[in-house]
């Protein structure tokens, strides 16, 4: 996932002229079209005449706001808590490390709705953490914005952890030795050597996590519910509109998500991307 910065730039130029198998081109083209057609569908099926009013409707704006706040918050949480976890998994030497990695990255493969139910049993009003938390502080997570953030973090953070861990693993740690031998304190080593070297992994992990959080549906609706203006994020609003027959609204909201995601993907390629 992390591109080596020391890779020779000339590698591969000699191969560019090589003939590519036509079958490969056909299959690749089919794969590309498979992704492009639905986008075309969204664009051609959009109610362009009513677009302005649909997008600026109270429900849409509120859902967008909630989505952005929740996804950015859970990305921030991933940075704060996920980075130390990734560090521990990459550099720590302790028993049960493999098990810990498996447990903390399980949500990547778990159906999100299952995650939502598990979250309810732990952090819900009757959950074994949630109940004492409620009694002690009065804080309840389900059916609140905080609950949305928890649900999104649960599903998205593993992407950050696993990407950053692989970045930390693939960097040459002896460069940190070199920095220390040159007089750099641990903090300086981290800021001037480690961080720049794992920057591509960090950027990729952040974007991946944010995108996963933005699109989160199953865990959110299970754990945080679907309260318009409180926990109804964009994906939930899209689903509700679609299932209640308001197809135009659903398409309009979907297009907003597509645009936001596209902007980020393009931004990402420019910043951390392949040159």
């Amino acid at each position, binding site marked *: 996932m992390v591109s080596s*910065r*020391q890779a*020779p*730039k000339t590698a591969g130029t000699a191969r560019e002229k090589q003939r590519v198998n036509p079958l490969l081109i056909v299959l690749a083209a089919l794969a590309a079209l498979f992704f492009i057609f639905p986008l075309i569908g969204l664009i051609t099926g959009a109610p362009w005449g009513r677009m302005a009013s649909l997008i600026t409707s109270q429900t849409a704006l509120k859902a967008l706001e909630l989505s952005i706040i929740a996804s950015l918050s859970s990305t921030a949480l991933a940075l704060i808590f996920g980075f130390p976890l990734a560090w521990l998994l990459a550099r720590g030497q302790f028993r049960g490390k493999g098990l810990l990695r498996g447990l903390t990255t399980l949500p990547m493969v778990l159906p999100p709705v299952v995650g939502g139910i598990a979250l309810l049993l732990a952090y819900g009003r009757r959950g074994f953490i949630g109940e004492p938390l409620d009694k002690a502080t009065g804080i309840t997570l389900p059916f609140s914005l905080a609950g949305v953030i928890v649900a999104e973090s649960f599903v998205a953070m593993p992407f950050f952890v696993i990407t950053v861990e692989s970045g930390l693993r693939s960097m*040459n740690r*002896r*460069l940190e*030795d*070199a*920095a*220390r*031998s*040159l*007089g*750099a*304190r641990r903090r*300086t080593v981290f800021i*001037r*050597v480690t961080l*720049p*070297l794992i920057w591509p992994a960090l950027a990729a992990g952040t974007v991946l996590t944010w995108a996963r959080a933005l699109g989160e549906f199953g865990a959110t609706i299970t754990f945080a519910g679907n309260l318009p203006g409180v926990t109804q994020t964009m994906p939930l609003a899209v689903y509700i509109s679609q299932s209640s027959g308001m197809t135009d609204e659903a398409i309009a909201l979907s297009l907003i998500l597509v645009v936001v995601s596209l902007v980020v993907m393009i931004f990402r390629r420019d910043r951390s991307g392949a040159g």
Partner: protein
Amino acid sequence: MLEADIRLRLSRLNLDAAFTVAAGEVVALLGPNGSGKSTILRALTGLLPLAGGRVVLDGTVLEDPAERVMVAPEKRPIALMFQDYLLFPHMNAVENVAFGLRCQGVDKKTARERAATTLGRLELGEVAEAKPGAMSGGQQQRVAMARALVTDPKLLLLDEPLAALDVSIKTNVRRLLRDVLSKSSAANMLVTHDVLDAVALSDRMIVIENGGIVQTGTPAEVTGRPRSRYVADLTGVNLLAGTARGALLDVDGGGRLVCAESATGPTLAVIAPAGVAVSRHQPEGRRENAWQGKVSAVDLMGARVRVHVDGTPAITAEVPPAAVDELKLDDGGELWVSIEPAAITTYPQ
């Protein structure tokens, strides 16, 4: 001045070596792979904690496990140039070289100026703004040298500084390095497995094998009177150990030599391959210092040919290429070797 007594135990190595390096002196650590050379450098920098012994630099104790003294690597006035350079790939040459100065608290502008000056001294002005990935191996090597030198360390450690270079530029870089080291007021140590580098660059050599020092002395002493098979092989001489009684030397493992000098007790004998004569038949009129053996290998060394003769004792002779044909050396038959007593140098073990 460095006073070091390094003791530590790694999985396959039990390191125990005590030595000193004076300020301005250049000491070469010579030894086979896995003998502990690079480990000694890592231990001196503090990247590898000692189990016992101590490291004292200019009167300051940097490490003494018994006294629980351990100065962190970043606080030691030591610079280490790594064998694979370990330049920071995300920084250009100036930033790489300025890094150590910045860590010492030198302001950015001054650090960059001093870095640029040092790069200029090493003829690297044109790559100052380039990143390591865009440099040749030789340029990377010199940037690494500049990075180690720029902080004016009290102890300069060079781990195989020339090993990764192409032969074509090695000579030039060696000259440059010798120049730099001769002006250095630090205690300088370089690790090498190349005798030529050690002889060309150092004032004194320390030979290390299996974690222990087997010989120390000037390059002339060490190469002229090697105490280990390793050094003898590197310099390409025959080294025989034995017991002397007057001019007679009973070689360990069999054989007897008549030497020009008398000695008593355990003795080492060095014989240059050029001093070993080879013939098909027993040399006439010579009884001593002549024996038979089978040719075990024939190597071409430049314009000369080395013949390894497996007799009692085994010995290597050097002959002109024409002799290969004349003596039919490659048919593997029996051969006679003979040595003039004057070609044998003996010294106590």
